[in-house]
């Protein structure tokens, strides 16, 4: 489906987006933000849950629909403890129960998501010259696996394996942790990304030798 070369290019594209997003995030939380090298996860659906750190963990999920020349979905997952810490950094308040967040607290979380994802997507768009737009953020406070399974479902129409571009944002102190997942609608979406930067000449690794 993807050659090693194409996977490397996708990771690099992810890296450019994540770098830009980390800078934007560090400005709003006034803390250094680091990123893990992005990974492209290709796995059968029944194994996806196993790559999550704590599938039944209580988390904040922020969902974005990406449309335009790249149809895909983007999900951010922030564990319970880190969500509380983020709210403290942003609003200077202690939140006890994430299930009873007020409007202000909910918008603060959505805004963090918005800044992160829009700077990721704008770097992607600059780099690939593809026209991309993101939806308004949508918030869910729930079980991690239930949140991530939703965008996977859409990809499930065309394939039996899940395809995710994932990376992790973490702060200098141990209080910031955001998992980022970009899940294309179908196989064509990521191919478009590769094509946009001129990677469509080779079908697979072996073509280098032909």
């Amino acid at each position: 489906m993807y050659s090693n070369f194409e996977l490397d290019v996708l990771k690099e594209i992810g890296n450019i987006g994540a770098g830009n997003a980390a800078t934007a995030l560090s400005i709003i939380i006034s803390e250094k933000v680091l990123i893990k090298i992005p990974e492209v996860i290709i796995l059968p659906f029944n194994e996806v849950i196993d790559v999550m750190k704590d599938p039944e963990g209580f988390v904040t999920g922020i969902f974005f629909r990406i449309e335009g020349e790249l149809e895909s979905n983007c999900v951010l997952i922030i564990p319970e403890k880190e969500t509380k810490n983020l709210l403290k950094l942003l609003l200077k308040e202690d939140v006890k129960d994430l299930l009873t967040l007020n409007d202000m607290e909910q918008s603060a979380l959505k805004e963090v998501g918005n800044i992160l994802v829009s700077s990721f997507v704008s770097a992607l768009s600059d780099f690939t010259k593809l026209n991309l737009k993101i939806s308004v953020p949508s918030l869910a406070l729930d079980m991690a696996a239930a949140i991530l399974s939703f965008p996977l479902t859409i990809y499930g129409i065309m394939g039996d394996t899940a395809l995710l571009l994932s990376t992790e944002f973490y702060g200098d102190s141990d209080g910031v942790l955001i998992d980022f997942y970009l899940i294309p609608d179908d196989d064509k979406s990521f191919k478009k990304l590769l094509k946009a930067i001129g990677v469509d000449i080779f079908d697979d690794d072996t073509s280098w030798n032909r």
Partner: protein
Amino acid sequence: MTMIRVGIGEFKSAKAPAVISTLGLGSCVGICLWDEFTKVGGLAHIMLPDSNLSTTNNFNPGKFADTAIPLLIYDMEELGANRKRIIAKIAGGAQMFEIKSQMEMMKIGKRNVEAVRKALSQFNIKIVAEDVEGNFGRSIEFNCDTGLLTVKSVGRGIKII
């Protein structure tokens, strides 16, 4: 007691005293089937309503309600169940995010539940208990000995149906 885990798009059947579980049902639906007489139970974790949606001919039948349910029934019959006695309990089919989009797929939870009802009625299987839709995720455990379905969701405690 054996614990059997079912992943996304999978289905498995077992005999008592096994407990079959699946976690992280968001828009997906967990279908538990049970034959009380032989204590044979089965669980399918479906992601999508209808195999007609598939853009490929060769797909995992466990993903779709219409293809997973008949296969789960055959699987249970292999273990001695009789389809005339099989009853069902279902959970899941939530809408995790409120999304303003024209895309029909964004409301997949509700469609999944409808498709499961339809597929079960084609086999004359009665749904005796359910915990569906809403806007929250669920993890479930089905006990093949008692036929009880335990539904866990964040902040809403545990429900046994």
